[in-house]
């Protein structure tokens, strides 16, 4: 089974090289990308089953023994993230293939799109599977380099303008991450996460806290936690719809994943919990207030994205098993839903010619299926009862109430308020874009939406609904993962079976 572990990283990278060579043959290029990502999804599911049944899967790359060599580790958290991210990237890829075929689209993807997209996937999977801090850094850099190309795709003035902000902010966060990697190595003499888990405990409290805060700072920029989130709503909306969708779904969540690892495996004990709770509450409230004021569908969703990151940080900051479990469930739910919403925004743009709420209306009559595709995930995001958004929020709020104390209480209130405001934002967008008198930005009759684009969006909406139906088993997995994360021993003993050297 462990022989499968490098595949989610290696297959997309090889696929990227292959599709770059086949740049002149778009049909073959598409086939390769779809095959690579389907293979990755299959391997990810197998890894999750293995990790759930028999504990973490570990492979030492090049057979160098763990503390020195590079290890890839798929524990339940990593495997679960891998499954969701592969499923989402596959759907978005199909969507972009559909968009490339449609004649109405202004921004048909250029031949560089497929190789870059596969490299992005490889970066994301590498970050999830990384067993040492430097490999995590490399994973981040791979996905960032690919995302730089994707966000400036086509090189129009608007994309260059927003892209330059994104590039500079991302590089700055990488520099902070690299500095903390260097300092962690200077303090402990290792970068292997399992070995760090032991050695960091022996450091003086002040040094430990400083390292923790530096890592958190770097990851919080990537995850767009409130005081460091201003770059996100400005840079995401101008990119092509599939690119924005996959960025919104995955890139910030890689940051959240890194925060979960930092707070559980490397620095347990929760000395930064109060700080995290304060920023989580601010992220939720400030983010959603930003969404209330937006007049463009894509910008609006960017702000809800920032806002809902707060829920996950809240779950992590509780540092109880229930809180972590809720946070992991919420990450899974939010990757799916946020991606779906951005894809729907892309469909709206395709159908009505704009995502500006001032220029569109009455889409529910013009395109009823589009209305359903918007309504279900929007209500899911807001947390209307039967959906997974409600279950995730309920899990987090219950964990918050169970933790007790004034600060978690305030956070529970902020979470409820954010949920209500999200409902307001979602129904406002619904009323304006879908329910009022018909008006479209373009006057010419629109061609039929490409079937593959609609199909991929339907698949993601269905995945969101499946998360609702399968919430019970999923909560079992996340609770188990959270238990393992808090114990730390399953991870450490899987990587270093002979004990910590």
């Amino acid at each position: 089974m462990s022989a499968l572990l490098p595949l989610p990283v290696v297959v997309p990278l090889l696929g990227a090289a292959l599709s770059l060579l086949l740049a002149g043959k778009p049909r073959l290029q598409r086939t390769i990308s779809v095959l690579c990502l389907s293979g990755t999804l299959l391997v990810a599911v197998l890894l999750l089953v293995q990790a759930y049944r028999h504990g973490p899967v570990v492979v030492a790359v090049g057979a160098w023994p763990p503390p020195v060599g590079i290890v890839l580790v798929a524990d339940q958290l990593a495997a679960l993230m891998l499954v969701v991210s592969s499923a989402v990237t596959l759907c978005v890829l199909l969507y972009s293939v559909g968009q490339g075929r449609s004649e109405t689209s202004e921004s048909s993807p250029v031949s560089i799109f497929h190789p870059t997209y596969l490299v992005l996937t490889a970066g994301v999977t590498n970050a999830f599977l990384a067993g040492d801090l430097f490999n995590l850094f490399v994973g981040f850099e791979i996905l960032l380099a690919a995302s730089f190309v994707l966000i400036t795709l086509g090189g129009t003035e608007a994309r260059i303008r927003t892209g330059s902000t994104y590039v500079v902010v991302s590089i700055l966060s990488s520099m902070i991450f690299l500095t903390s990697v260097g300092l962690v190595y200077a303090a402990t003499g290792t970068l292997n996460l399992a070995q760090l888990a032991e050695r960091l405990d022996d450091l003086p409290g002040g040094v430990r806290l400083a390292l923790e805060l530096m890592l958190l700072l770097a990851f919080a920029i990537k995850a767009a936690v409130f005081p460091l989130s201003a770059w996100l709503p400005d840079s995401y909306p101008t990119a092509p719809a599939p690119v924005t969708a996959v960025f919104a779904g995955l890139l910030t969540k890689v940051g959240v994943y890194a925060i979960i690892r930092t707070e559980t495996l490397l620095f347990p004990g929760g000395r930064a919990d109060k700080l995290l709770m304060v920023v989580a509450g601010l992220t939720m409230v400030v983010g959603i207030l930003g969404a209330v004021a937006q007049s463009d569908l894509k910008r609006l969703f960017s702000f809800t994205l920032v806002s809902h990151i707060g829920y996950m940080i809240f779950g992590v900051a509780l540092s109880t098993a229930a809180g972590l479990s809720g946070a992991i469930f919420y990450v899974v739910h939010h990757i799916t839903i946020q991606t779906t919403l951005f894809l729907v925004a892309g469909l709206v743009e395709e159908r009505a010619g704009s995502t500006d709420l001032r220029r569109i209306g009455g889409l529910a009559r013009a395109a009823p299926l589009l209305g359903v595709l918007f309504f279900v995930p929007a209500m899911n995001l807001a947390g209307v009862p039967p959906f997974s958004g409600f279950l995730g929020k309920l899990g987090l709020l219950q964990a918050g109430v169970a933790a007790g104390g004034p600060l978690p209480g305030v956070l529970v209130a902020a979470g409820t308020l954010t949920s209500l405001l999200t409902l307001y934002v979602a129904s406002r967008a619904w009323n304006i874009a879908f329910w009022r008198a018909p008006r479209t930005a373009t006057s010419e009759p629109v061609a039929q939406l490409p079937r593959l684009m609609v199909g991929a969006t339907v698949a993601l909406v269905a995945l969101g609904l499946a998360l609702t139906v399968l919430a019970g088993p999923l909560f079992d997995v996340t609770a188990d993962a959270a238990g393992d994360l808090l114990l730390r021993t399953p991870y450490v003993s899987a990587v270093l079976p002979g004990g910590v050297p």
Partner: protein
Amino acid sequence: MTESGAGPTLVLVLAVAVLVGCGVILLLERSLTRVLLGIIMLGNGVNVLILLGGRPGGAPIVGSGPVERMSDPLPQAMVLTAIVITFGFTAFLLAVAYRSWYLSGDDEVPDDLEDRQIIRRAGRNEASAADLGGEGPNGDPEQVDPEPARRRLRRGDDGQ
């Protein structure tokens, strides 16, 4: 790095401080070219910092001397990776700066959309129009009103 292995030399520590300090100051500029220079200085400063994290000593090649007096090879390996990454990002940022200059005549990073809208509104001294449901009976978001006049117009267009 010194052969005696007494710890990092003060010169290198000062170099890190100067590089990172200048890098941060340049990063705060508006022009992308200066930002780029800032990122190069910051990146090099951080790379030297990583190098300082390992044990100093002789060249880490087996057979060139006693193992105890070798420097730590791991930070050197990491720094090589980091240098390549910084190099790639520098090249990309240069391309972005050039493209920005090509398209708009300068390489300044402008204010974001929201800021510019607020400045424009403040200049005209008007309140922000956040309610986009539209005002008046025609724009009532709660109403499903097919707007007959406009439809007829469009059908007429189609017929021609």
